[in-house]
């Protein structure tokens, strides 16, 4: 029995080496001018070409045959010549490993690794072939999302990573070429979602160990670029249009008093038609997964530092990016003590640096405000420390203005000041209550001279968003942040004439980067650490909870309904939704759809993130 088996093995080994030799012979025999080739050799070569034809589909037997041929070829790499075996190389480089079983894939990848090491002339094509295999071939695309493919997909990715690693070991300069190839093969905006997600997932898998050190930065940069590109292609008009119609729809539902049951579907409705949002959603999941695995392997800090630079370069100044910035939010939430704090300081640094351009600083302060308010993982003392820096900067700005006698009230000139005032108030709306719980933080906060900023002749209260100002004053009053006389004085300073398009006189437009996240799939990564306004405890909520309904009631009846899915789905407390809407701020849709305004009085509280007029740049 044992002997028999041995005999079998021998036979296989023999036939294999036979095959190897014949392949070598064939390769050798056609290495000459086509006219000189013996016809019989030519025939043999053609058979070889057919054997590695990339277009034919193979049964498992044929695959075994293919594997043997490929092994034979990798034993004969030195015989392969780019001139005379062009067709053969073409066939090899156009193969898709997705069609083959593990054994065949191994053989093919081994051949590719060997070819890439033989000479520079093959290197580029070998790498290109591997990169092409980051995405499944067209016919397989519909199947790939199937659960059964999950394991195989992972396996293929790890094989590709392994091969690329091998190549970079034998050809140390290969990563540079690889970077170039990946840059050029990046999925485009109009590629389908599966392809995009698959490519990015495989690509981020390379961001480990040595390859990660060499090209990790550029890989991440490319991914973030893609995210922002998708992000800016989700037009607000699309969203608003859908929201608009939904609003009416929901009003009807509200009449029937069964709105709650339909929330699940509504979420679907929201971005159902928006292809870009759908793709972005998929990619966000991939990036979040990647960050999570980095955190598990202890290399989050490194990744975070890279992301920070990319963010500064690519995302910060993107006009009203909506979702791409949430990768920073997620990265921070994975390591609140280091990354979370670091991000807050990083943004504050940009804001306070005079050398940075105004747009970046404006944007940075919006980010700080939104981040400190929404990030549940940021501790109250960090919030207070950052607030102190903002307040100090504002005081400093006011004093500088006082010294310059020619002061103008043109908000454009002081936009950074106003933006930071607004950020301070916004953060306090969310955090005041929690700060009050710590006596030491409370005393620190009370020592900050917030009053003097708000009372400044620059009149920030008239310029900042009225909803924030009102909410802030209300909470400040309840918390006795200022004494009673000051409260009255401040209230006088609010612009009473709210009938202008978006609120106060000369109101600057503001940007709230971390308003509730609207992408469905990736929401599960963001949600646990995200502070919803509905769940914020305000300083007055204990005693004055019932009065919430009075607050700016006229504008609410349309908007309040839009936000239902932002809250936990079982929440049907109108008051809560209502207040939440107040705090999610961007101008009203009437900007785009004036008709929507017709039924409402002048100011309506905007719900969630909305586009708004950009700060003059």
């Amino acid at each position, binding site marked *: 029995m044992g002997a028999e088996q041995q005999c079998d093995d021998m036979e296989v080994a023999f036939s294999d080496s036979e095959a190897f030799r014949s392949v070598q012979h064939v390769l050798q025999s056609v290495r000459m001018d086509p006219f000189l080739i013996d016809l019989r050799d030519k025939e043999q070569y053609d058979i070889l070409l057919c054997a590695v034809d990339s277009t034919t589909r193979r049964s498992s037997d044929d695959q075994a045959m293919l594997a043997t041929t490929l092994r034979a070829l990798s034993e004969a790499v030195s015989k392969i010549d780019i001139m005379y075996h062009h067709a053969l190389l073409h066939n090899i480089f156009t193969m898709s490993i997705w069609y083959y079983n593990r054994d065949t894939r191994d053989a093919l990848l081994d051949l590719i690794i060997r070819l890439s090491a033989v*000479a520079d002339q093959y290197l580029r094509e070998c790498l290109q072939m591997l990169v092409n295999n980051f995405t499944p071939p067209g016919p397989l695309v519909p199947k790939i999302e199937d659960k059964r493919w999950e394991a195989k997909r992972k396996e293929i990715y790890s094989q590709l990573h392994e091969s690329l690693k091998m190549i970079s*070991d034998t050809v140390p300069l290969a990563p540079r070429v690889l970077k170039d190839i990946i840059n050029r093969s990046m999925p485009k905006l109009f590629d389908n979602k599966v392809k995009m997600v698959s490519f990015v997932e495989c690509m981020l898998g390379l961001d480990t160990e040595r390859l990660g050190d060499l090209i990790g930065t550029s890989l991440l940069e490319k991914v973030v670029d893609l995210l922002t590109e998708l992000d800016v292609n989700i037009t607000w008009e699309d969203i608003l249009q859908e929201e608009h119609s939904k609003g009416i729809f929901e009003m009807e539902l509200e009449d029937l008093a069964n709105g709650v049951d339909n929330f699940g579907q509504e979420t679907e409705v929201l971005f159902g038609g928006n292809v870009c949002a759908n793709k972005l959603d998929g990619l966000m999941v991939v990036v979040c997964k990647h960050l999570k695995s980095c955190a598990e392997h202890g290399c989050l800090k490194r990744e975070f530092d890279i992301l920070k630079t990319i963010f500064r370069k690519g995302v910060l100044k993107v006009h009203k990016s909506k979702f791409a910035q949430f990768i920073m939010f997620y990265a921070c939430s994975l390591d609140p003590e280091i990354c979370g704090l670091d991000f807050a300081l990083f943004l504050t640094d940009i804001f306070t640096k005079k050398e940075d351009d105004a747009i970046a600083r404006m944007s940075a302060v919006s980010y700080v405000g939104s981040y400190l308010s929404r990030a549940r993982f940021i501790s109250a003392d960090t919030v207070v420390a950052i607030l102190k820096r903002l307040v100090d900067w504002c005081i400093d700005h006011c004093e500088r203005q006082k010294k310059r006698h020619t002061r103008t009230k043109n908000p454009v000139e002081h936009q950074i000041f106003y933006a930071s005032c607004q950020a301070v108030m916004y953060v306090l709306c969310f955090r005041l209550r929690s700060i009050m719980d710590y006596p030491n933080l409370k005393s620190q906060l009370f020592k900050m001279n917030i009053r003097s900023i708000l009372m400044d002749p620059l009149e920030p209260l008239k310029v900042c968003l009225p909803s924030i100002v009102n909410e802030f004053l209300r909470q400040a009053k309840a918390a006795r942040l200022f004494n009673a006389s000051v409260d009255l004085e401040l209230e006088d300073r609010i612009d009473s004439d709210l009938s202008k398009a978006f609120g106060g006189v000369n109101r600057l437009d503001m940007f709230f980067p971390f308003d509730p996240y609207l992408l469905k799939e990736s929401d599960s990564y963001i949600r646990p650490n995200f502070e919803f306004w509905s769940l914020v405890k305000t300083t007055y909520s204990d005693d004055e909870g019932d009065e919430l309904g009075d607050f700016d009631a006229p504008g609410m009846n349309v908007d309040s309904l839009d936000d239902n899915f932002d809250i936990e789905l079982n929440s049907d407390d109108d008051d809560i939704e209502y207040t939440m809407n107040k705090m999610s701020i961007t101008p009203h849709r009437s900007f785009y759809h004036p008709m929507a305004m017709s039924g409402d009085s002048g100011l309506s509280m905007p719900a969630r993130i909305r586009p708004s007029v950009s700060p003059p740049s």
Partner: protein
Amino acid sequence: MEALREVEAELTVYVHPSNAADVPRAVSRQLSGLLFSYEERFDGVLLAHEAQLVDEDNKENATKEKDKKEAKIEEETEAKSKKKPKILKAKILNGLVPFFGVRVHANLLLFSPQPGMLLEGKVEMLGKESIHAVVLGVFSVAIMSDDIHEKFRFKRKSHGGRFLSRSDREHFIKRGTMIRFSVKSVDTEMNCHITGSLIPPHTGSMRWLSVHDAEYASEISRKSMDTSIKREQNEQEHRILKNEDSMVKSERPHKSRKRSAENR
């Protein structure tokens, strides 16, 4: 190792005006762009550089200077307190492209392998058909079966197999072995890929050679005995590259470029 050489070069580096605030940095970035790729004008691969800006006033003949526009780049040395700001002059090129041509004196470390040279590398991968090694941790070398000495036989045992010498069982090459090989050809198209050969004498595993090859052994002992002599030898190899100022027209106007010509 043979293929390494140190050269001094007079270069003109074209700096984009957007980088005028920090010229030394711009120059070093520009030079860093050339790292690890084969440059024909250097006849080798740039491995390291150290550049100093040259004050032109002391050198240039005035007549040429006059008809070109001049721009002063105020170049403040990093530590302002150290000295008063140094003023360097750089030309703005005529025509559409407003680059500064900055004179630079640079020390460059080049890697320029030539056929016949003996180099050393670490084996990364091997098979019946070929041995693949890496030189200086950067450049890949392939030694194909035709170039492996007949005395070596491939044994497919253990990790990735090994080449064993028929004449001496002590002499083997496996993954991780440092080998000494002769350069057969150099592909300068992309990454400076080297094709090597193990056929010429004094090639093979370095460990084995150090014991069994008299010439190599003496070479090592010489090296370790007095490095100072070696240094002098190196200095003889220095070639001073002089600047060629004729290059104004560039094929790729969007990129600032620099040229130099070897003085040979």
